C-alpha cells in the first residue's frame, strides 16, 4: 500500500499571547511545529503500513523551514519526505494549495491512501483536503475517527458527525482527513531520530510540478485577504469573590439584570 501524509508546519501556539499595547499576536521565539492534527494522520499512515505493508511518504508545502517538520515526521516513522517549496507558491489560498499538493501527489504517486489532519490550527479552514481530492479526481472522507480495515480496494471507515458517527465503505484510492480520536501518536524512536538526520529530503519546486504560474500562489488564489485585525476584547467581566452564598447571589442578580436566562427550560 502506498500511503501519503500531507503535513503543515504551523506556528507553535502554546506561548501565543496578545500584546496588550498593540493588540497583536506575540510569537517571539516560537518554533514552527507540525500541525497537531497532522500527527494523528501520520500515526494512522504508519499503522496502515504496519498492517498492510507499503511505504509512507510525507509531503509538506511551505517555505524552506518546513524541512524541519518533514525530518520530525521521518523520526516518527515515515519512510521518505518531500518538500514542496517555491517562492511562487507564497500567498496560496486553499484552492491554490490544493492544486499544488495534487500536482506533487500525482508526480510522486499514485497513492492508495492520502491522509491529512482535519484542519490546520493556524488557518482553521479544513478545506485543503476535499479540494485536493477533487483536483486528483478521487473521493474523500473528512473527520475520520477509525479505519476499520481494508479489503481489496475497499476501505471501511467511521466518520464523526454531529450526534454520532457514520460507518461507510469507500473505494481506494482515497483521501482522508482524521480527528484526534483516531489514535495516540507514538513518540519518535532513537532509530527514527537517526534516520531523520540522514535521509535526504526531496524538494519539488514550481518547475518540477510544471504548473502554470496563473494557478499557483497569489495569482492562482481566487480569495484575497483584504484586512487582518484582532477581534474586540470582552469589556472586562464582573468577578465576584467572598462567601459562595453571597457570590452566587451576586452572580445570579447580575445575570438577571443583564437579561440573561440561566435556565434553558424556562429561559429560551
Amino acid at each position: 500500500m502506498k500511503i501519503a501524509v500531507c503535513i503543515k508546519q504551523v506556528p507553535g501556539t502554546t506561548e501565543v499571547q496578545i500584546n496588550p499595547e498593540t493588540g497583536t499576536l506575540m510569537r517571539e521565539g516560537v518554533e514552527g511545529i507540525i500541525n497537531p492534527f497532522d500527527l494523528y494522520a501520520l500515526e494512522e499512515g504508519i499503522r496502515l503500513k504496519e498492517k498492510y505493508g507499503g511505504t509512507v511518504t510525507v509531503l509538506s508545502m511551505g517555505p524552506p523551514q518546513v524541512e524541519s517538520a518533514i525530518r520530525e515526521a521521518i523520526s516518527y516513522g515515515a519512510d521518505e519526505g518531500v518538500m514542496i517549496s517555491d517562492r511562487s507558491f507564497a500567498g496560496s489560498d486553499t484552492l491554490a494549495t490544493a492544486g499544488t499538493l495534487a500536482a506533487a501527489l500525482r508526480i510522486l504517486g499514485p497513492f492508495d491512501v492520502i491522509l491529512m489532519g482535519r484542519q490546520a490550527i493556524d488557518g482553521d479552514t479544513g478545506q485543503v483536503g476535499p479540494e485536493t481530492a477533487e483536483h486528483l479526481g478521487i473521493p474523500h472522507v473528512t473527520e475520520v475517527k477509525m479505519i476499520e480495515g481494508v479489503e481489496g480496494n475497499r476501505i471501511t471507515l467511521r466518520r464523526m458527525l454531529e450526534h454520532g458517527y457514520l460507518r461507510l465503505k469507500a473505494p481506494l484510492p482515497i483521501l482522508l482527513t482524521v480527528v484526534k480520536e483516531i489514535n495516540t501518536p507514538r513518540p519518535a524512536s532513537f532509530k527514527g531520530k537517526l534516520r531523520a538526520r540522514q535521509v535526504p529530503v526531496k524538494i519539488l519546486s514550481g518547475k518540477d510540478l510544471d504548473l502554470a504560474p496563473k494557478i499557483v500562489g497569489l495569482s492562482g488564489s481566487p480569495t484575497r485577504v483584504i484586512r487582518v485585525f484582532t477581534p474586540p476584547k470582552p469589556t472586562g467581566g464582573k468577578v465576584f469573590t467572598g462567601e459562595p452564598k453571597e457570590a452566587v447571589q451576586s452572580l445570579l442578580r447580575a445575570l438577571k439584570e443583564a437579561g440573561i436566562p440561566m435556565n434553558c427550560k424556562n429561559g429560551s
Partner: protein
Amino acid sequence: MDGIKVIIETCTGCGLCLRACPYQAIELREKKAWITDNCTLCGACVEACPWKAIVIAGWKPIPKEDLSQYRGICVMVEHRFGELSPIVPEIIGAALALKQQFKGDPRTVSALLIGSGVRALSEELFAYGVDEVWLLDKPGIDPFAEDILADLAARAIRDRKPEIVLGGGTVMGRSLLPRMAAKLRTGLTADCTELSIDPETGLLRQTRPAFGGNIMATILCESSRPQMATVRHKVMKPAPKEIGRTGQVVELDYKVPKSDFEILEFVEDTSQKLDLTEADFIVSGGRGLGDPKNFSYIEELARTIGGTVGASRAAVDAGWIPYPHQVGQTGKTVNPKIYIACGISGAVQHQVGMKGSDVIIAINKDPNAPIFSIAHYGIVGDLFQVIPELIRQLRSKEQG
C-alpha cells in the same frame, strides 16, 4: 519576496513586525525590515506595524468570464432523516440579511435542495423566507453520499449561476462545499462569522477567525464566481419562520450518478444527548475537578440548567470523560448562549474553542487564571462549594 513590500522611507526599524510574524520571516537589515522567503503573506506584520510601512501589494485579478451573468444568493440545504439541519435557518438568515444590502437592485434568495423524497421540505424553506427552491428530488440520493451530492450541486450552480453560495459550517458543509468550490474553480471562505456586501463593489465581504480566533480576516473573492462561504454554527441570526409563505419551485432534472460510497449505518452517540456544537448551555469541567468522580458536580449543574457537559483537554487526556466532550483547539468549537467553565484555567487552546460563546461564566479558585480575562462573569472560589450553592439557588428560584 514578491507581493509584500516594506516602504523603506517609512520603516523606523522598530522591530514590532519581527515579533508579530508567526513565521520568523522578517529580519532587520541595516535597521529596516526585510521580508525573507519564509513569508506566507499572512498579513500579521501589516497589522502590527504602527507606521504602516508594510504593504501587501494587491495582485489585480483578471476574471475568466463575464461575472455579471451571475446573480442572486443560493443557500445549500443540509438535511438528515427528512428534517432540515438546525443550521439551515441560520444560513437563510444570513442570506436574507445580504439580500437587504443590495439596495435598489434586489436579488433572489434561493435554496438548493437535493435528495430523495425531500420535496416536502420546500414548504419549510419558503416559511423561512427563501424566494425560490431549486429542487432535485430523485430516488437514490443518500444524504451522506457526498460524492454525488457535490457533483449534482456543482452542476446546479453552474446552470443557475448564483453570485453567492452559502453553506453551513457543519461537518457535511465543510466537506461538501470545498469539493464544490474545487469543481467550480472558485474561492471558498470557511466558517465565516460575519458577512456583508461591499456597498461600492457589490462584493461579498467574508470575515472569519483564524489563528484559533486570535486574528480576524476579511476576505474577498473578486475574479471568480460564485463567491462561496460556509457560516459558523450559532453565529448568524436564524430567519424567523412564517408558516404559509410561498415561493417558486424550480425543478432540476439531472441523471443521478452512482455513489462510490456504501453507507453502512449511522450510529447515534448516546453518551451525548445533545451535540456540544448545537448546545445553548454548556457546563465544562477541567483539571480543577481533581478526580473523575467529581464530574458529577458538572453533570448536576448541567442537568439543573438543561445544559450539555463539556470538558477541557486536561480532563479528557486524564481519561475522566470521553473525547467528544472536549472543547478547544483539538476538540470542538462551541458557541452556546452560556458557557460555564468550572476549574478550567483557560489556556489559549481552550479559549479558542469557546470564546465565541455569548456569555462566559468562570468558576475558579485562582483569581489569576486566564479564564477570567475572557469571562463576562466570574466567581473566585472553591468549585466544590460554589457549584452546589449555585444549583441550590437556581432550584429554589425555579420553585419560587
